[in-house]
């Protein structure tokens, strides 16, 4: 069943068609990879789907169908209900995705109360269990830390945990491993694969690193200059994709 | 688009004031004893003041003084600032610390206060020419601290960049570094500071004059013309008194619009 169906173009002031009629579908439980060089429009698509591209001055034209609803015509209130609960974003740099002035627990609490009415103390055990699944320490001391007091790899896991708090159907991961060292990179990839296999979470995985995409994704699309060049199933033979990009 | 309109307006005002001696109907100090405090008429489009001098002419001549001297003072300030900034940044170490401390000292004393104090120390019965020179020289010599701080930060940032490293690696000397590499890259900041400082000086001169410590009579300046507004109750009955204020506001407004960036950043 199709979870997300995207047919969009994005304009920036002064640059029309930064993303030019890109169309792809993502099924439930599928990991779809979007590959391309910097400037090809990958991050733009990620933000456009969540209708956050307006914050960067862009404008979306087209259709974004998510679970039967067209997000491109939704009001801000309806979009807010989708963001974080049904569809989540994981950004490239975990340090900049977390508010430096707030403790981790506060940020988790906020992520929780954005979409749930139950008080935090009821939800806390569930979140602690989530942290354990992510391979993070689950003691109080860890939750009381500030983002600057955890390592980059841990911070990215925290971001992913926050993205999973409400069990979203789709995670949009915009270059989630680019800012990490090779060791952490492998761990995050394994974590994403685990989320996909155990919880059936679909992932839109955006990256310029093809080998990692071949490990993780079911299908890969290639972007260049804002246009989608091709979409292919990942098999042993897709190493030929390297020459296309 | 608004920026271009603002720039053209500024240019028009500048040229009009420059040509004051050609445009003005009367000399600025000619007193028409029979027509003191007169209302506007064909002979005196903005009326005459308490001493019978034509307001329009004083507006034009005063404009010439203000509009030539504020940028001149700004030029002095910005020149001092750029020398201090480049010198301190290039020499580094102890020099830089001293320069920073000096800048902080100057900035910790409110500008208008310093100006007032120094201006007040001078005899009040100086000749108009001297008071003119002294006022704007003071502005220039006391107003360098703000631009200096901004430019020192910019110079330090530039010195940390890769192209400077490359230049030094190929054996470039310090002076050549400053002239050929640093100065061109600091040009935008310098220009921005000039466009910030000149209007600020215009305002400062107006404030000083409103307090009675501006340019001595009979030389007019926009600031001293504003003194007539001290008697606020007259203004609603004689709205033409506000002409210098309107012109000042328009000029400063255009300066704001003509500037690319906002200077209100810490």
């Amino acid at each position, binding site marked *: 069943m199709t979870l997300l169906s995207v047919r969009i173009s994005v304009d920036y002031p002064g640059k029309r068609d930064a993303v030019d009629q890109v169309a792809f579908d993502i099924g439930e439980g599928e990991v779809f990879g979007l590959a391309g060089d910097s400037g090809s429009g990958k991050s733009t698509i990620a933000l456009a789907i969540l209708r956050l591209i307006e*914050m960067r001055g862009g404008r979306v034209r087209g259709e974004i169908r998510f679970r039967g609803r067209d997000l491109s015509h939704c009001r801000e209130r309806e979009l807010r209900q989708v963001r974080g609960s049904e569809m*989540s974003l994981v*950004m490239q740099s975990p340090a900049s995705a977390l508010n*430096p002035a707030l403790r981790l627990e506060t940020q988790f609490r906020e992520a929780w109360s954005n979409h749930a009415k139950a008080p935090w103390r009821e939800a806390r055990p569930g979140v602690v269990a989530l942290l354990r699944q992510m391979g993070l320490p689950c003691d109080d001391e860890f939750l009381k830390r500030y983002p600057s007091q955890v390592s980059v790899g841990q911070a990215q896991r925290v971001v992913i945990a926050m993205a999973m708090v409400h069990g979203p159907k789709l995670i949009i991961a915009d270059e989630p491993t680019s800012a990490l060292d090779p060791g952490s990179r492998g761990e995050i990839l394994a974590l994403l694969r685990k989320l996909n296999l155990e919880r059936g979470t679909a992932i839109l995985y955006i990256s310029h690193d093809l080998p990692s995409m071949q490990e993780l994704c079911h299908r890969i699309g290639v972007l260049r200059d804002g246009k989608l060049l091709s979409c292919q199933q990942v098999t042993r033979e897709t190493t030929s994709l390297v020459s296309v990009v | 688009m608004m920026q271009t309109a603002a720039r053209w307006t500024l240019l028009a005002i500048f040229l009009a004031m420059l040509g004051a001696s050609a445009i003005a109907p009367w000399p600025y100090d000619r007193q028409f004893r029979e027509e003191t405090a007169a209302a506007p008429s064909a002979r005196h489009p903005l009326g005459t003041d308490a001493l019978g001098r034509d307001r329009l002419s004083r507006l034009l001549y005063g404009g010439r003084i203000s509009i030539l001297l504020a940028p001149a003072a700004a030029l002095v300030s910005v020149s001092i600032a750029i020398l201090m900034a480049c010198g301190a940044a290039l020499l580094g170490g102890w020099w830089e610390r001293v320069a920073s401390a000096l800048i902080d000292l100057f900035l*910790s004393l*409110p500008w*208008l206060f310093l100006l007032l104090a120094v201006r007040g120390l001078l005899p009040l019965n100086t000749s108009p020419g001297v008071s003119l020179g002294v006022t704007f020289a003071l502005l220039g010599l006391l107003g360098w601290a703000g631009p200096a701080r901004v430019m020192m930060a910019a110079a330090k940032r530039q010195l940390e960049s890769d192209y400077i490293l490359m230049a030094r690696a190929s054996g470039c000397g310090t002076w050549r570094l400053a002239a050929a590499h640093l100065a061109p890259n600091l040009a935008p900041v310098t220009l921005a500071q000039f466009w910030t400082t000149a209007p600020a000086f215009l305002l400062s001169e107006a404030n000083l004059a409103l307090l009675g410590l501006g340019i001595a009579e009979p030389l007019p300046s926009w600031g001293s013309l504003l003194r007539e507004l001290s008697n606020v109750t007259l203004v609603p009955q004689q709205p033409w008194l506000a002409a210098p204020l309107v012109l000042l506001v328009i000029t400063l407004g255009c300066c704001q619009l003509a500037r690319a960036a906002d200077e209100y950043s810490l």
Partner: protein
Amino acid sequence: MTEIPARGAAGGSQPVRSNTRSGKLAAAAARRLSALLLTVVASVVLGAALVRLAPGFGMDERQMDLRLNEESLAAMRAQGQSTGILTACRDYLSGLARGDWGVSVALGRPVRELMADRAGLTVRNLAGGLVLAWALSLAVGFALAVARRRAWDTSVTLLTGGLLCIPTGIVALVFLYFAAPSAWALAAVLFPRIFRYVRNILQDSARRPHVLAARARGCGRLALVWRHVSVPSLPELFALVGVSLSMAVGAIIPVEALCDSPGVGQLVWQSAMGRDLPVLMHATVLVAVVTCAANLFSDTARALVTREV
């Protein structure tokens, strides 16, 4: 609920860190305090130098009196000019320590008395003006950040831009015309400047990536602007407090002078008009001390808030 760590809070989880941290804070405070003292000394020297170099120094009214003969005049002149700059500084500092601030030439009363009489009113004016201006700036800045409407932003920008073009003296005169308190006039002068800074700080903060990430988590507008935009900007806002005090002290002189409010600002203006050098010198030092102290306070507050030294 937001967590801005109070000074002792870090001690709960990591005691070793907080010892070093409070040590560092103390060292930084000592550094700034010595900077303050240096500034005071430097401004005293500056003030004394200016006074000494001012044309007509050492000349007093008795020299203008034609009834006195040449001998007495020569004696007075010699007495006046025998003091060098360093001597003047030394005399001044020792006088300051004794509590003797000299006598006002124009008003004939001890400077200390004059200042004490007027200080209360000036402090009230400054406090009133600053509080009003800050409250308005924060309220409008916050409202614009939450509303996110370009039209409102543009109109407020134009309004404050217009206010910035009007000389302080004219604003004071307008408030005088409407018989409004001088604190309001000061607030009207300070508001456009403080607001512009506040708006830029909030706008810069709103562009940071964690704000986007919070919005992607479905954060509501009010919580977004409060927790993710305003709270991380607290260090810059604290720094602005020091700057705004400097602005206020500068603006208080024309405001009090033209609004006819008998505070220290009006005294300074009258001294400048009357070339009352003792008062001017003391006022310079006082102003330097106050602004330095304010900057010291806002610097320290900022350091505490950022958990950095």
